[in-house]
């Protein structure tokens, strides 16, 4: 276990170094992503200038919600961009090179790519979480833990969407769209969703786990809320790892001659 963690740490370190090697591109991507987030959030500033609250959700709650989602996306972009095109990589037989190696396939795949843009999301997410928690430093350790949970769930949702390829074959852009659904739904107040849609948003499209659960904790802090968020993250992650493992057993080589240097 310790050697595996050391290996993954080294892989991550290499990725980050690789991103930083092109220093200009790194900063440009991170800053443009920060700008991207800022522009998107402007719509909510304008909205809440006109409307004071929506079913009890105010601008401060939106800071928290967006903070968690932005942090989660940054976490995914830095640590799990390798899962973005997982379905295509399966179709292309790219797993051939990974399967005979002694390390677990999923973390290796996830960490095989890293996007510098994710750092912009992390910064934006932390700023919004600061505003959402009304700059209360006592809440920061828990907020950070919940933010990491959001990131893990988002990354796992990408793995799950892409794992469909093991059963359905060529998927076109479906996994990316399912992933986008998760991001989009996680950025709206949970109070808007009731009934069956709410069930979907906590299961099939885990937007509820990425945004609402942690944001709800911030609105009404409780041990039960924290436990629910942590437990749900653990259960969802284990489920996705299990599904991916089942899919991997169905994987057939792409029969491609290539060299993985």
């Amino acid at each position, binding site marked *: 276990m310790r050697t595996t963690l050391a290996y993954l740490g080294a892989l991550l370190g290499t990725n980050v170094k690789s991103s930083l090697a092109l220093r200009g591109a790194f900063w440009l991507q991170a800053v*443009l992503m920060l700008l991207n987030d800022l*522009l998107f959030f402007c719509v909510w500033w304008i909205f809440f200038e006109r409307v004071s609250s929506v079913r009890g959700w105010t601008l401060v709650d939106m800071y928290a919600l967006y903070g968690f989602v932005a942090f989660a996306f940054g976490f995914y972009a830095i640590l799990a961009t390798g899962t973005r095109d997982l379905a295509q990589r399966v179709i292309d037989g790219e797993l051939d090179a990974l399967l005979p190696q002694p390390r677990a396939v999923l973390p290796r795949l996830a960490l095989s790519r890293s996007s510098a843009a994710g750092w912009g999301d992390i910064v934006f997410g932390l700023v919004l979480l600061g505003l959402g928690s009304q700059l209360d430093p006592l809440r920061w350790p828990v907020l950070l833990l919940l933010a990491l949970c959001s990131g893990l769930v988002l990354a796992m949702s990408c793995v799950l969407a892409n794992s469909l390829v093991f059963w359905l074959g060529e998927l076109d852009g479906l996994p990316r769209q399912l992933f986008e659904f998760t991001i989009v739904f996680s950025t709206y107040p949970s109070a808007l969703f009731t009934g069956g849609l709410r069930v979907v948003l906590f299961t099939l499209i885990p937007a509820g786990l990425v945004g609402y659960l942690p944001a709800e904790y911030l609105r009404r802090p409780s041990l039960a809320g924290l436990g629910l968020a942590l437990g749900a993250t653990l259960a969802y992650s284990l489920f996705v790892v299990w599904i991916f493992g089942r899919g991997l057993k169905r994987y057939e080589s792409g029969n491609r001659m290539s060299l993985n240097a």
Partner: protein
Amino acid sequence: MSSTRLPPAPPLLPAFVQLVRVGMRQTFAQRASWLGRSVFLVLILVIFERLWRAVDAEGGLPGFAARDLVWYLAITEWIAIGMPQPHLSMEAEVRSGEIAAVLARPVPWLTVKLAEALGALLVRMSALAVAGFVAAWLLAGGLPREPWGLALALPLGFAAAALGTLCYALVGLGTFWLGDATPLAWVFQKLCFLLGGLILPLALYPDWLRAFAEWTPFAALLSGPGCLALGADPASAAKTAALLLGWLVVVLGLLRWGWSRALVRLDGAGG
């Protein structure tokens, strides 16, 4: 000494039309993709129908009924989701070096990308128009107050999506300098959202921001056609059409200039 004569390049227009047809066929074959986009559009409309009803229940936005705002969003989202993003394949081909092999073909690489994207646009926008119309009708509980606006919005929506596609191609040329056009595409997309009035009509914006947005192509891209759901005004439709045409000329000029610079850059950096 013998000289090798290159075969003459094919006439560009018939080749362009053929490539558009190829793009249409490719997109039509990717049923999961355009069906997924249709579902995405419907889900967005569901979210906002709930949002606008919730806002209505708490006093609403003066002058804007939830029903009309659902139709406004149906049009703006139809355009935003329907416009293809050629920068993705452009970026992939530049980064992989595949472009070096494609450059030798008689039809310019950028023309191929634009034609294929235009073909994709026709299929995607058609599928989304049906899904968006049905969903908006059901969610809004009927047509907008002045339904003729929808007839005006239809051709303008296609034209706006075409302009947006050209803008994405311009973003794709950024790969030659940045190595990754995706962050630029995000910024372009979010500028569309904000300055185009994707979610809120520009009339609800602060005066200074509305005035600024109207000087950009984004207002003509989304808000122009979208506002026709709030009132069928032929003068406003004509103004949007003129703005779209003007911006189309500007973006085509920028594409031409950017492509010539990109070729120089590629030559210098290697394919």
